[in-house]
């Protein structure tokens, strides 16, 4: 241990929900996108799933909203070290979309991409089983553009750069392909509980 002289830090809180190296951002919700926030209306938004699926499909805003609703209440964790507790997102579970397209047995990974061209890769298993959503509401109100509105991917059990803003689609693959930050030195999976921040962690 490399103790810093005179450093005491914030009062300790016993918070079992806080992954290693993270701090509680409280009411703040920092915005860290690397690109210009797009001018994207619900009418211009669409979401598709293609690649290794039986029936590739595109949903527009109304079609996506017509799927059975599902919400997430819990915590989110950003690789820059903040975590935010007790957030509430509304949308649709990705499972509902996958039921329509029926992934092939050979599909093991996914690349999620945005209307801006941003992309991020995930193991398919991280997107199924009620652990991932297409979200358009935050705390009961429409998701703000700077936070990914009209709709973003939500994968709260991984660092938040995996939850692609302005989600445009998901392509299923039989191999892993690095996305935008992953090509820029970030970890391929990004599990906050194992502190998988950067490539090699």
């Amino acid at each position, binding site marked *: *241990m*490399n*103790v*810093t*002289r*005179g*450093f*005491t*830090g*914030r009062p*300790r809180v016993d918070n079992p929900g806080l992954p290693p*190296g993270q*701090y509680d951002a409280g009411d*703040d919700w*920092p*915005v*860290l*996108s*690397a*690109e*210009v*926030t*797009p001018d994207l209306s619900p009418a*211009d938004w669409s979401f*598709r799933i*293609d690649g290794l699926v039986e*029936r*590739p*499909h*595109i*949903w*527009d805003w*109304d*079609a996506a909203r017509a799927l059975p609703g599902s919400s997430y209440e819990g915590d989110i964790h950003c690789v*820059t*070290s*903040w975590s935010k507790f007790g957030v509430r997102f509304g949308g649709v579970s990705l499972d509902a979309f996958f039921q329509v397209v029926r992934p092939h047995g050979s599909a093991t990974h996914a690349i999620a*991409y*945005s*209307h*801006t*061209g*941003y992309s991020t890769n995930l193991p398919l298993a991280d997107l199924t089983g009620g652990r991932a959503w297409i979200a358009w509401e935050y705390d009961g109100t429409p998701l703000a553009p*700077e936070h990914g509105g009209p709709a973003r991917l939500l994968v709260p059990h991984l660092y938040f750069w995996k939850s692609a803003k302005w989600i*445009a*689609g998901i392509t299923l693959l039989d191999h892993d392909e690095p996305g*935008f*930050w992953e*090509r*820029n*030195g*970030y970890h391929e999976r990004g599990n906050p509980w194992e502190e998988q*921040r*950067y*490539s*090699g*962690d």
Partner: protein
Amino acid sequence: MTETVTTTFTPPTRFAVPGRIAVSTGAAAVWQTATLTEIRRETPHAATFRLAVPDWAGHLPGQHLMLRLTAGDGYVAQRHYSIASAPDDSGHIELTLDHVPDGEVSGWFHTVARPGDTVEVRGPLSGFFAWPGDRPALLLGAGSGVVPLMSMVRHHRAQGLPVPLRMLVSARSPEELIYAQELGAETTAVFTRSAPTGVPVGRMTATHVAPLLAEQPPGGWEAYVCGSNGFAEHASRLLVEAGQPVEHIRIERFG
């Protein structure tokens, strides 16, 4: 309405911007001890901290690092900070930190730290906001958002690079303008709260951005925007409205 997929997806805004450099994953994975060698006050709220990092792998202007402090009971606080110094072979790097109210890490730097103290760093990190000095650079920053941009300005000067570089920087007042003494003809400062006599007070506007985009260098500008999210949203919108292509705008937001 739903439809069957027949075509491939093309993002309408084409932000498929790749990183500027390949990132060395080896160097980024290792925590190194950094020894504080010098503290220089920049403004009432910001100071520069010079660190000796003997095994520093080298960085490009615009890159950042992760820094951590450890308390006696094992409690660790870590933050990302932009590197202020230009790449050189001095074995030192410099960080310029705002004193954030109640900031446990910046508070330690501003009130406790003295030369000889050690902290831990890992990096450099991320190639996306890096500027290798190859393309014309248009830099827009506010507050401590000037820090990674100053690394680019310093690099441009130190290497005598032939590509054009311009910087537009916003500060609350002349006293709050970081690196004020070091800024040259490449920089235009905008003051939002108080300004020297004869200089208008107000936020950055299209009037500031338009002349820069009017002088298009060959190949066009690569724009780098750094600051709070509020500033980044505002400045990037000004750039887009003035005709800067979105795929040539790189944003680093503090948060």
